[in-house]
């Protein structure tokens, strides 16, 4: 049953007064002299008052002391203890105060625990943040480096593309030259084909002529052989003539001899005989000349026959050569026609190549523009990443400051002893 302190004081006073009254009533009955009765009553009242006062004040001061200790503990940050007052039959405001204090301690304890865990978490988080921001800074630096490399690469790319463009322009010129060369080759191949055609026609005509000539030569050979036999016959006739001349000569000789024997009568006969002898000599000489001529003719004839045979052989070889020449011209025509077709193909292809090269030049110019844009964008990215790196460093500093703050908070909160059960 709760009784306020003021009521307790009133109760004690009432008890002292009641004891005085009671003693005044009881004292005449106890046989105490009259003169002593007042004194005893007073002393007993004082005694009762002292006893009650001491009991009450002891209890009260004990509670106050407890509360003071608890408040001191609280002020010292010790939140581990709970205020426990001696339980009495009649609790008073001190007990209320103790309960309030306990609630305060409880609240503080929760608050400190919360702050402690929160600041620990903040410290951890800010450390993590710091580490992360450092990593991000490092990454940003790397990004910056990479972007610088990219920027350099873009410059190299631009140079390469310029060279590429130059090369492609040169290539286009070369291709134009190839095209014109191919045109010329085509013309040449056409000329070659025409010439080979004419050459083939000529070779065929020559062949025809040669066959004709060969036939004539063979005919000539036969004629020469028959001529040789004719000449041989002439030779035989000449032999006969020679024999006749010799006989005539002999007859003339003998006639001369006979005439000489006849003396003066034979003189005229001798002259005739001499003339005959001269004629015979002349005939013999002519026959000899004819024989010589026939010999020369036969020799010449044999030579002509031999050379004719040789000529026929050579003509056969010539015919074979002409045949091969005709075939060669055919092959040349085929080759030239093939060359013409190929050259036309090359010309068309090189035309396409020229178109392609022009398109390539346009495309390369566009690539060059894109590369220039890329370089500019890369520089912007580089600047941005540097800014990012700076921001990240700031953030890291902030995180470190935050961590320091959290640690300070922890230090501050560490003063409060929460007790083991709460951590």
């Amino acid at each position, binding site marked *: 049953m709760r009784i306020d302190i003021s009521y307790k004081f009133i109760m004690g006073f009432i008890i002292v007064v009641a004891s005085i009254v009671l003693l005044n009533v009881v004292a005449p009955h106890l046989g105490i002299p009259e003169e002593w009765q007042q004194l005893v009553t007073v002393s007993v009242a004082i005694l009762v008052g002292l006893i009650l006062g001491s009991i009450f004040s002891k209890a009260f001061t004990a509670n106050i002391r407890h509360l003071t200790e608890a408040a001191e503990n609280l002020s010292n940050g010790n939140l581990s203890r709970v205020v426990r007052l001696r339980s009495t039959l009649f609790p008073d405001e001190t007990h209320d105060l103790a309960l309030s204090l306990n609630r305060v301690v409880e609240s503080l304890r929760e608050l400190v625990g919360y702050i402690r865990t929160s600041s620990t978490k903040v410290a951890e988080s800010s450390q993590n943040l710091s580490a992360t921001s450092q990593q991000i800074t490092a990454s940003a630096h790397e990004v910056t480096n990479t972007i610088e490399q990219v920027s350099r690469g873009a410059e190299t790319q631009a140079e390469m593309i310029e060279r590429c463009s130059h090369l492609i322009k040169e290539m286009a010129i070369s291709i134009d030259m190839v095209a014109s060369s191919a045109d010329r080759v085509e013309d040449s191949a056409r000329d070659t084909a025409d010439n080979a055609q004419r050459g083939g026609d000529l070779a065929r005509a020559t062949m025809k002529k040669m066959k004709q000539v060969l036939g004539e030569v063979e005919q000539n050979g036969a004629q020469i052989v028959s001529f040789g036999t004719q000449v041989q016959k002439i030779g035989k006739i000449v032999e006969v003539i020679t024999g006749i001349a010799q*006989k005539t000569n*002999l007859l003339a*000789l*003998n006639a*001369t*001899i006979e005439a*000489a*024997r006849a003396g003066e009568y034979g003189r005229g006969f*001798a002259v005739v005989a*001499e003339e005959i*002898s001269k004629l015979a*000599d002349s005939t013999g000489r002519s026959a000899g000349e004819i024989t010589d001529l026939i010999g020369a003719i036969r020799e010449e004839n044999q030579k002509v026959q031999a050379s004719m045979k040789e000529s026929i052989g050579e003509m056969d070889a010539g015919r074979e050569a002409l045949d091969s020449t005709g075939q060669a011209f055919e092959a040349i025509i085929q080759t030239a026609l093939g060359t013409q077709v190929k050259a036309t193909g090359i010309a068309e292809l090189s035309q396409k190549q020229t178109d392609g090269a022009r398109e390539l030049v346009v495309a390369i110019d566009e690539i060059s523009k894109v590369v220039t844009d890329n370089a500019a964008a890369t520089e912007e990215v580089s600047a941005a990443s540097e800014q990012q790196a700076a921001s990240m460093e700031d953030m890291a500093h902030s995180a470190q400051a935050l961590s320091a703050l959290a640690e300070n908070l922890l230090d501050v909160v560490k003063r409060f002893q929460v007790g083991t059960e709460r951590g």
Partner: protein
Amino acid sequence: MEQVLVFQLGEETFGLEVALIQEVVESPHLHYIPRAPNHVLGAINFHGNILPVLDLASYQGFLSGTRDHRVIVLPPEVCSLALAVASIRRIIPLDAEALLPFPREQQEQLYIRAVLNCQGTMINLLDTTRLLASLETV
């Protein structure tokens, strides 16, 4: 005017008077005469008479090379003999003024009676009398 038949013996030119010649004939088949001297080539049939053929060149000591296919037949009143020579040339007139004497002592073996100068060519005239005489002694 006398005439001379000119013929060749080796390199030398000889002559014989036409009066001392019967006929010049183509040498028909030459019959071999056994055990005859070397300078007798053989025998011919001359109009039914057998005539020995004398190799005049080898008989006078010339190298007998080529031989004319004709032989000179001497008249039968002179001698039944035919002469084989290297070659028979022609008949030329005998100019007595162009005759040069031949020193007989010089060559006993050569039967030459005189030398005829016929336009620079020396023609030895055959001495038939001595030749036939020498043949008789053989």
